[in-house]
Every structure is written in C-alpha cells, then in structure tokens.
C-alpha cells in the first residue's frame, strides 16, 4: 500500500476541485484510503491521516471513524502524534460520547509528563472539553499543577480548574488552598488566569466570596496590582496602544465588581483606584474604552459614592459622542440599565441621547428611543416631544407602534396643557395613524371627552385631518366618534383656538358616508361612522331625513354588525323617537380608570343597562331631564335618587377599540357573559351591581322562587303587579318584574313607568316591552326593575305613571310600601 498522501498535498488537491461534486468525490476516495490505512494499524502514518481527516471535517464531511484513532495518537510517545491527537479529540469528540472516557488515563499520564508542552496539551484538552467524570478523576492532578512554580503550567492549570469547577461545582473547595498565593506572581499569564479562577469561585459561592473578602483581603491585593499596571512605565511585552496589559486590567475590574457588590467596606477600598482608572485611561482607541467600559460597569454595580457614579455616567455620556458606533451602542445599553437609579445624572446627557435618535444603526435608535422615554419629565416634555415626534415621522415601521404608545403615555403624564395634549395626539394620529395600537383609541376618546373646553377645536382638527385621507383606521375612528359627538360645534363654527372653518351639515355627512363606503375602512371603523351619523340626527337640524335614509340603507348591509346597528337605529327613529334625543345626548365626563383588563369598564355617572335597543348614553346626574326634575319635585326628596329608564352607556375603556361606543355589545354578541364579580373590577367606584346589569339575563337565572308577588298599584282600571326574584350570586340584588294591565275598554297608550327609591338603594330600569296597555286585560306591559340593596333596608318605592287614555293625558304618583320581606332581606 503506497504511503498516504501528505496533508498539504491533499489540501492542494481538494482546492483544485471545480465543483462540489468533484470535491465530494475526492474526499470520498481519500476517506476510503484513510480507512484502510487505519485498519492496517500503521503507526507511522496515523498522524498524517488524522490531520487530513480533521481538514476534511472542517470542510463539513463526516469524520467519526477517526475518533478512536485520535486516542491512539494521544497514547503515542511522539509529540507530534500527541499534538494532532489532542487537537482531534477537541474537534471530533464531545463529552456525550463514551469514547472520550478512554482518554482519561492518557491525560492523567500526560499531566505528569516530563515535558511541559505535553502537560500543556493535556491541560488544554481537559480544560476545553473534559466531561464531569473526567474532571472528577483528574481534579487532583490539576490541583497539583496549580501549585507548581512553573508559570507556563500554572496558568493553564488555573483555567483548567475553572472548567473543572464549572463542570463539578462541589470540587471548588479543593482548589482553595492552591489559590493562596496566586496573586503574588509576577507573571501576567498566571495573574490573569488566577483572577479568572477567583472570579469563578466568587461568583459561584457566597461563602467563597465572603472568605476572599475577609480572610484573604483580596481587594487590597487587586488594587495594588491594578495600580502598578497603571503607574508603571511602558512595558513592551504587555503593551497595547500605550496601555499596560488591558486584558488583566479588565479582569481585575470585573473581579472587583463582584467583591464590591453589596459590600460597603470593599466598595470603599476600591473607590480611589476606580476613580484613577476612570480619569487616567486613554480614550482614543478601543482598548482604552474597553477598560473604561468595565470600570463604569463596576462603579454602577458596587456601593460607590455619588461622585463616582456621576463620573461613570459622564464617561458613558462621552461614549455617546464617540465616532465608533460600537462604543455608542455599548453606552446606550449601559445607560438604559442605570437610568432608573441615577436618573438625574443621565438627564444631563439627554441631548446627546436624543441625537442618537438620528443614528443610522437600528439598535442604537431603539435604545435611544427607550432611553428618551425614560427621561421625559414635566420640565423637558415640550422639547423632547418635538424630537420624538420627528423621530416618529422618520423611523422604521417596526418602531412606530412602540413610539406612538410611548408618546401617548408621556403626553398623558406630563402634558403642559390640554391643547398641547390634543395637538400631540393629532400629530401622532396623522403621521403614524395606522401603527397606533387598538387600545389607544378608547383612551384617546376618553381624553378628548374630558377636555371639555377643547371639543370644538378637537373636532375641527380631526375633521380637517380626515378630509384629505381616511385610510388610517385609528385616526378615522377617533375622528368619527368626535364628529358624532360634537358635530354641532363643527357646523356652528364655534372654535376659539383657531380660525373656525365653514362646513355644512351635508359636508360632514359626506365625509362620514365616504368612510362607510370606503374599502379601506374596517368593520369597526364603519361601526363608528354609522353611530356617528346616528348621533348627528339629534345635533343637526336640516339633514335628519338624509340621516334616516343612510341608516335605513345599512339595515340590509352584509356586515352583521352594521346591519344590527342600522336596524336598531331605524327602530329608534320609528318607534322610540321620543327617546332619541335623550339617548343620543352628549357623553358625560368619564372617570379615569387606570388598569387595563378586558373586563374593565369605565363607569359614567349614568346608570348602565343592557337593552335590545342599542342606543346612546344616558344623561348624567348633573344634567337631569325635565322628567327627572318632576319626579324629584314631587317626591320632594333629597333622599331620593330619581331614575329614568334609559339605555346603556357605552363602555369606553374596554379592550379593543370596537368595544368603545358599543352600545350593548353584550346583546350584539348574543351570548351574555357572566357578570364580572366585584373583585375583578377593582377600580370601579360604582357598585358592582351595575355590572350585573350589563350582563343581561344569566345572572338571574338562579332564581329563588317562592317570593309572593304584590299589587303595587291599582287605580282607574290600571293595575300594576310586582313579581320578585332574588339572585343567588348577589344577595343584595332583587329583580322586580312589573306587569301593567288595563281592565278598561280603551287602550292606554304612551305608557311610561317611572320609579324612585331611597338613596341607600340603587335602581335600574330596563326597557318596557311596549308602551301600550291593551284594553280588557288582553295583554300586559312588562318591565324589569333591578334594585340593589346593600344595606338590606326595607324596600320602599315611589312610582309615577303617565299614559294617554280616552283622549286625555293621565298621570299618577303612588308609593309602594307593601314589599314582602323576602324581597329585600
């Protein structure tokens, strides 16, 4: 068999291959040759063959059949064999294979070899890929070598020990004695590796850490070494760009960090040296900055005094001005970590940070953006916002959503004025409108509602914004909602903040209809637009017919949501027109709730009520209608809270923009959900009872039967009966179903039932089944009343009835006192 070709020749041959296929063929041929050579157990050429195998392995070809051969090489006496053998072991073997265990003995022998380079090979291999078993077996040998005076071996033993400790932490103790005088070495290699070893031990074991702090007085030693490095003159052997052994400096700084963490004494002992390094290190090259970076990390992590911390942050600030983007990146990352604890110091570098928003590097931009948001406060909000809005304009799409959310948050916290706030929101909506998150829409709407004096200005600006472009859904949604609410202000040109625009009702309806028709509008947006149009029916005077037409058209829309709304609005026009103005009244100021849960609801001052009729929010307490006034007067009480049968309010702050303004979304979905328990909506100031109402039926499925019904009223042929149900889930709630019947020979029309209860109670009136009580008891009107009685007081009620009968308007008041005890106890 001819001698196997040499390594270099093989490499040369393979490189002549022009295609992948050609290369593969060559490799396969050579592998076959090597295999047969291995089979012949030829010692002479084994080394050459394994070397070739390693080359082919690097190209990506399998070489596992050479694993055993590596072991044979390691066991050989020749240095060359060992060198290649150990290299092969490190490249081809990993600890998951059993083969490597066979190495243990060889390594053990080689650790005790007479030639230091052989010992070095063994240490290197063990320290690179030794398994836990191997480490356990050989730890003793490593420990011995750690105490040798041969610095070449000592440094390797130290790093080998690090590996052993990582693999078998319990063995850490055994290396402790050997560490005693490690730092007295002059040899930098030994010093460096010793520091690494000590670092590993201190990080892993708090006991070790304490030991090294107290007993070994590690800190002074390290300080001394570091000082020498800085103060000593030029040492060509270890010099890098004028700095003496930066690798060692960085390592020492890192160990100091661990020692000084949470320890006042140690931190104090290293204060001076840290200040010295921070101020004296040359910053023109990367190597100096590497040391400064490590110094900053250390200063921020230990219990350093404030002057030092400010120094550190200033270094980071200087880094931000560095041309090298690596350094800028590293600085921003570090600043982000420290901005919470050292806010004021970081503030001083705000303008530099803001400049980084214009950096070309994406990660730098992102970090700069995060930092900027962390630094916004009441003093700098105007300036910062200008920069951030500019950033929002020009940044990559992946940032826009986060940036928009951040701007909203910052604006909410620090807005100097309402007008500024609205303007900022407008700016975000118009520049990044499609990236705004869904949950921002309800928040914005709430904000706008609460800025009462800005309504005219807001609606005008929003109108102008969508005139040109109505493709950005969040913007259109907010705009539609506002126009629906404040359209009257828009056409009457009431804006004070800026030049009022001339716009007619028809023009407003034009834009809303365009939104409805547009292909770009989502279903949710269309819902907003339709509702807005409906609301305008009470705010506009000349275009009501047009509105009616639009609403009726959408009654046959394919979109079920839209259809349902349209049908119900239609009904509002037809059967319930007398309620329309009350239902579509202006939204009251909302209470702000800060948590964000899907069950969360922002309570308005009005009562909430699910109804088949999805219409608008009720008038709030402070704006009672005339009917309420009547009741109040008649009932003569400030101890009575009048209740008017009304429709549900919208739930502005639920998750998902589509829930906003969603009147009776519960009925919409068809599946009434269980009412959220009081515990799940912690922020609501109104009693949870009101939430019960929102869930329509099921709450009261658990009926306790057996409460006797009463006749609450009987006069002039009109009889009203009360039947009772109690809820099992909420014992303070009583459901009363009233039934009105008419025994006269003529119908009673336009029948309205009203009720009032004492202040300690709360009342909810659901919609009646109709407004006509047919004659001769041929039918009844039913209506459901829910009463919340948390104090379990005796139930009392005053009722007022109005209806038309025999051509004249009738009205009566009565008190109901005969409630059975089971209905309220």
């Amino acid at each position, binding site marked *: 068999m001819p001698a196997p070709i040499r390594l*270099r020749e093989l490499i040369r041959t393979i490189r002549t291959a022009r295609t992948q296929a050609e290369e593969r063929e060559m490799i396969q041929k050579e592998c076959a040759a090597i295999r047969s050579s291995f089979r012949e157990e030829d010692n002479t050429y084994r080394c050459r063959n394994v070397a070739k195998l390693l080359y082919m392995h690097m190209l990506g070809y399998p070489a596992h059949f050479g694993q055993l051969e590596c072991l044979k090489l390691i066991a050989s006496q020749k240095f060359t064999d060992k060198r290649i053998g150990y290299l092969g072991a490190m490249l081809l073997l990993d600890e998951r294979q059993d083969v490597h265990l066979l190495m243990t003995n060889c390594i053990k022998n080689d650790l005790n070899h007479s030639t230091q380079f052989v010992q070095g090979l063994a240490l290197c291999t063990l320290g*690179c890929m030794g398994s836990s078993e191997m480490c356990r077996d050989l730890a003793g040998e490593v420990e011995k070598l750690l105490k040798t005076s041969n610095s070449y071996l000592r440094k390797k033993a130290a790093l080998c020990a690090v590996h052993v400790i990582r693999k078998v932490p319990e063995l850490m103790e055994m290396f402790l004695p050997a560490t005693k005088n490690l730092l007295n070495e002059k040899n930098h*290699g030994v010093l460096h590796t010793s520091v690494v070893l000590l670092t590993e031990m201190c990080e892993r074991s708090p006991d070790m850490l304490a030991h090294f702090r107290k007993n070994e007085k590690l800190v002074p030693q390290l300080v001394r070494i570091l000082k020498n490095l800085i103060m000593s003159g030029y040492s060509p052997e270890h010099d890098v760009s004028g700095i003496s052994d930066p690798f060692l400096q960085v390592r020492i700084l890192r160990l100091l960090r661990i020692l000084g963490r949470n320890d006042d004494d140690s931190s104090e002992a290293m204060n001076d040296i840290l200040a010295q390094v921070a101020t004296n290190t040359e910053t023109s090259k990367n190597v100096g900055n590497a040391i400064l970076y490590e110094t900053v990390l250390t200063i921020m992590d230990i219990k350093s005094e404030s002057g030092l911390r400010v120094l550190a942050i200033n270094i980071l600030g200087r880094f931000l001005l560095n041309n090298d983007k690596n350094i800028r990146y590293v600085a921003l990352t570090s600043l982000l970590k420290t901005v919470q604890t050292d806010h004021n110091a970081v503030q001083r570098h705000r303008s530099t940070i803001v400049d980084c928003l214009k950096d070309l590097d994406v990660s730098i931009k992102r970090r700069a953006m995060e930092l900027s948001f962390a630094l916004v406060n009441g003093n700098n909000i105007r300036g910062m916002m200008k920069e951030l809005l500019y950033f929002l304009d020009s940044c990559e799409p992946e940032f826009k959503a986060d940036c928009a959310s951040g701007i909203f948050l910052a604006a909410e916290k620090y807005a100097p004025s309402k007008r500024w706030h609205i303007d900022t929101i407008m700016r975000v909506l118009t520049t990044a409108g499609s990236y705004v998150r869904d949950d921002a829409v309800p928040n914005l709407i709430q904000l706008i509602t609460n800025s009462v004096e800005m309504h005219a200005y807001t609606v005008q600006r929003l109108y102008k914004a969508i005139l040109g472009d109505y493709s950005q859904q969040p913007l259109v949604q907010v705009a539609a909602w506002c126009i629906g609410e404040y359209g009257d202000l828009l056409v009457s040109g009431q804006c004070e903040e800026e030049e009022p625009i001339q716009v007619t009702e028809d023009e407003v309806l034009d834009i809303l209809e365009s939104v409805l028709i547009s292909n770009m509008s989502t279903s949710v947006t269309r819902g907003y637009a339709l509702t807005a149009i409906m609301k305008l029916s009470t705010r506009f005077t000349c275009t009501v017919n047009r509105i009616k037409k639009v609403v009726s058209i959408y009654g046959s829309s394919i979109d079920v949501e839209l259809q349902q709304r349209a049908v119900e609005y239609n009904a509002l026009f037809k059967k319930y027109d007398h309620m329309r103005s009350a239902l579509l009244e202006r939204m009251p100021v909302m209470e702000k709730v800060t948590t964000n849960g899907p069950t969360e609801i922002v309570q308005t001052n009005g009562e909430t009520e699910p109804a088949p009729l999805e219409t608008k929010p009720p008038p709030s307490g402070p704006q009672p209608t005339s009917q309420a006034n009547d009741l109040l007067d008649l009932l003569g009480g400030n101890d009575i809270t009048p209740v008017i049968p009304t429709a549900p309010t919208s739930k502005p702050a639920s998750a998902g923009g589509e829930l906003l303004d969603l009147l009776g979304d519960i009925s919409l979905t068809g599946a009434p959900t269980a009412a959220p328990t009081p515990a799940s909506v912690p922020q609501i100031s109104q009693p949870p009872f009101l939430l019960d109402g929102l869930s329509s039926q099921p709450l009261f499925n658990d009926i306790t039967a057996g409460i006797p019904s009463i006749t609450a009223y009987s006069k002039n042929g009109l009889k009203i009966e009360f039947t009772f149900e109690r809820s099992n889930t909420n014992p303070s709630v009583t459901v009363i179903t009233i039934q009105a019947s008419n025994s006269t020979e003529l119908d009673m029309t336009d029948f309205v039932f009203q009720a009032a209860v004492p202040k300690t109670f709360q009342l909810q009136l659901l919609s009646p089944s109709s407004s006509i009580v047919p004659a001769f008891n041929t039918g009844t009107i039913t209506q459901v009343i829910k009463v919340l009685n948390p104090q379990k007081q005796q139930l009392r009620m005053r009722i007022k009835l109005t209806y038309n009968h025999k051509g004249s308007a009738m009205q009566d008041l009565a008190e109901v006192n005969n409630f059975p005890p089971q209905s309220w106890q």
Partner: protein
Amino acid sequence: MQFMLRFSTQGKLRLQKCHVPLSDKEKKKITRELVQMVLARKPKMRSFLEWRDLKIVYKIIHASVYFCCAIEDQDNELITLEIIHRYVELLDKYFVSVCELNIIFNFEKAYFILDEFLLGGEVQETSKKNVLKAIEQADLLQEPRHEYFNVPV
C-alpha cells in the same frame, strides 16, 4: 467565550473552536446560522449582535476573513474585539505576514497558536512574546521526519 469561528467572505469555515458540549450536528447548525448572520451585515454596521442569549462579536480582517466570537452576557464586548485583534497579530507574527493561503495550508497551526493564547474560552497569556515563544519551542519538539509538518517559508 463560548465559541470562536473564523471564515472566509464566501462562508468557508477555517477555524471553529467550541467550549460548550455540543454535538457535531448542533455545531454545524450554529456555525451556519452565525456565518449567515455575519455575512449579511453591511460594512458600516456595529460589530455586536444579539443571538439567542449570547452576544456575538465579529470583525472582518483585511477584507478577506471574518472572526466571530460568541460571548456571554457578562463578558465585555470591547475587550473581545481586542482579543480578536491580538490573535490576528499572533498569526501575523508566526506566519511572518499572514495570508489566507498560509492559514489554509497550516490550519492545524492556527489551532495550536490559539491554544497557547486562549484556554477554555479565556485568555491564558497576555504577553505576545510568551505565546510565540511557547509555540516555537513546541514546534521544535515535533519529530522532523514527519512530513506532514512543514516549517512555513
């Protein structure tokens, strides 16, 4: 440091040193991923990347070869750049003005030199002189009749 790679601008691997136990297949996969990631970087971009839970530090040398190191979160990226730089200097000194072909034909030497500079991913010798001295002395131990070994010209 968890691993170090050296590869050409075409993505051909020249050196792969791994300090965490990984199977051959895993090593291959990781190498491929990292090579792709680094080759996709444009010239003026920063040298640091985030990958899995590690930091990747890379550098291109003489516009022909990439060095790529994967370090842990608490390691200092800037000093890693210096480590790469030092290794390149060592190769330069040993091969007397290194060119890529030299490294290819003497790939095992590149590993030997690396093993005198780093051990288990940590720097073992900070003096350039000492590293080179050790290599030279070890080279002398090599039995001369082994023809696989050429003294670089």
